């Protein structure tokens, strides 16, 4: 093979990868990278103390040095937005991590054992899936008190069966493959076949699904914080900020609700789009 031919192959391969993700996909990825950066270094990036109150500036609009203006207590809005990114993403991260691990484990057990194990788990998925996550969170919050941990646990109970159902179907197909039988005949242990061979083959599906789920998690946990069931004030958090800005909205000061709401929606859309594009790129829709 000539050098030119090799170069062509390399180039087409690279372009095809890029084009699969698409402009929108790359844009979504860029948004997510920026958000994650802010979530990690928000405190250092914030120009002012996000909790410094100055009632004199209550609901004042953008002025020089304060590009987004102030919230109802006169705190710098940009600083609160930057610092709030962390609490807005830590919850979803925990939620996605927990429900992905739980959903994957249950789905693999169901697909591997089949028979009554599968029937029981599938029925369990369907029953749990029928409960709206938000309602479950409200129920748990009344029982155990409001807070991020309770909200994450409640939504984990709702997200796990959603992933579990989807993954079980894919895992059933994968565990029925001939190579799995071949490994069994070679005397591999069940655990080894599932963890070392079946699971890696399902990874693209799981990753794409987890990313899409992250988008939903951002919105759901933001919504719970908005309702006062998630992150508690005075911690800066986008969901909390949307709620805090609501009274001012009626008085004609939309900036806080608008800014925090935009960030939430942007994050949710970006994760949704990226997950979808990755799934398409890997052929695991």
């Amino acid at each position, binding site marked *: 093979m000539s050098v030119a031919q090799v170069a062509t192959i390399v180039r087409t391969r690279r372009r095809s990868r890029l084009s699969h993700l698409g402009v929108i996909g790359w844009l979504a990825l860029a948004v997510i990278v920026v958000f994650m950066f802010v979530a990690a270094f928000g405190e250092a990036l914030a120009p002012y103390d996000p909790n410094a109150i100055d009632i004199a500036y209550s609901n004042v609009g953008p002025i020089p040095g304060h590009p987004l203006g102030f919230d109802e207590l006169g705190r710098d809005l940009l600083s609160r937005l930057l610092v709030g990114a962390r609490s807005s993403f830590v919850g979803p991260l925990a939620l996605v991590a927990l429900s992905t691990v739980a959903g994957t484990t249950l789905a693999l057990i169901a697909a591997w054992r089949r028979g009554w194990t599968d029937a029981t788990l599938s029925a369990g998925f369907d029953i749990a899936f029928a409960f709206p996550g938000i309602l479950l969170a409200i129920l748990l919050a009344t029982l155990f008190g409001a807070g991020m941990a309770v909200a994450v646990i409640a939504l984990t109970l709702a997200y796990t069966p959603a992933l579990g159902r989807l993954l079980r179907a894919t895992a059933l197909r994968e565990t029925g493959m001939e*190579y799995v039988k071949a490994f069994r005949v070679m*005397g591999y242990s069940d655990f080894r076949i599932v963890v070392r061979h079946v699971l890696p083959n399902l990874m693209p599906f799981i990753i794409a699904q987890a990313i899409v789920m992250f988008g939903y998690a951002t919105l759901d946990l933001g919504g719970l914080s908005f309702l006062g069931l998630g992150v508690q004030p005075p911690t800066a958090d986008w969901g909390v900020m949307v709620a805090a800005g609501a009274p001012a909205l009626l008085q004609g000061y939309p900036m806080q609700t608008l800014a925090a709401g935009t960030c939430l929606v942007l994050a949710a859309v970006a994760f949704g789009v990226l997950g979808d594009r990755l799934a398409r790129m890997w052929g695991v829709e």
Partner: protein
Amino acid sequence: MSLLEVEGLTLDVPVDSGNGRILHGVDLTVEAGSAMGIVGESGSGKSMTVRTVAALLPPGATTSGTVSFEGEQVTGMSSDRLRRYRSSQVAMIFQDPRAAINPVRKVGNFLIENAVTNLGWSRSRAREKAIEVLREVGINDPERRLDAFPSELSGGLLQRVMIASTLLYEPQLLLADEPTTALDVTTQSAVMALIDRLRRERGMAMVFVTHDLELAAAVCDTILVMYAGRIVEKVPASELHERSRHPYTRALLDARPRLDGRESRLRAIPGQPLSGLEDVTGCAFAARCPFALDICRTDDPPVVVVDDGEVRCHRVHDQLWEVS
């Protein structure tokens, strides 16, 4: 004691309406170092028979009868014993090597992981041995092939890799489930010759499942003919052509093209093949048999021992063919 003894083996699988029986009392015996061919049309239960020997049953399947390996019941093995049985005493070569090897792991990984996990070898020893067995199955440049993905090798090469994996531990029994069906014709003969040579060199016994009567007769000592989940004839391979007696075997032999081209049309067997699932009274082949009598439709034919073979046919003594 024979290496493998199967007696009265039945296999039931769940179907829409309860249970379906796909093996109806299969008996077979394989002596150490010998080769047995199982032939029959699709759905006759050939593959299910060998898979049952490897304790590889479809989900929800139940068996009765016995499968014993060196006198030990395979169906009664604990999961630990079963793992040792599978990893050191039997090996299976599958029909489609591309499906039977995990596509996302490298060839080297496939061979080395096998040796490390199941045989407890060190990584470096496993690697050395992997190169050695790859060379033995006729793969050039084995060091480089270890780093190849399955998709980078041809079907024939992959099947050689599969065969190489069985040579790592030299099992006493090789189960070959149509090992050449997914390969093209020239590769088929090379792969089959390889299996045959390695098996003889190492004194491994083999159960060889195929549609190809000639091939089975060439590499096996005994031929079993299966129809609808039953063994209808057992005949020494050398006598398949001249001395087989069951009408179904004869019809299969007649359905082959002839090298001298004297007949332009192949003689097909009339009617539809029967799957083991269907309920039959009498002989399973009666509906398609040109020699069927009333008794064939009502009574299950007994196993009749003739010369060195066994035949399940009511009319075995009726001189339907000239048997030399």
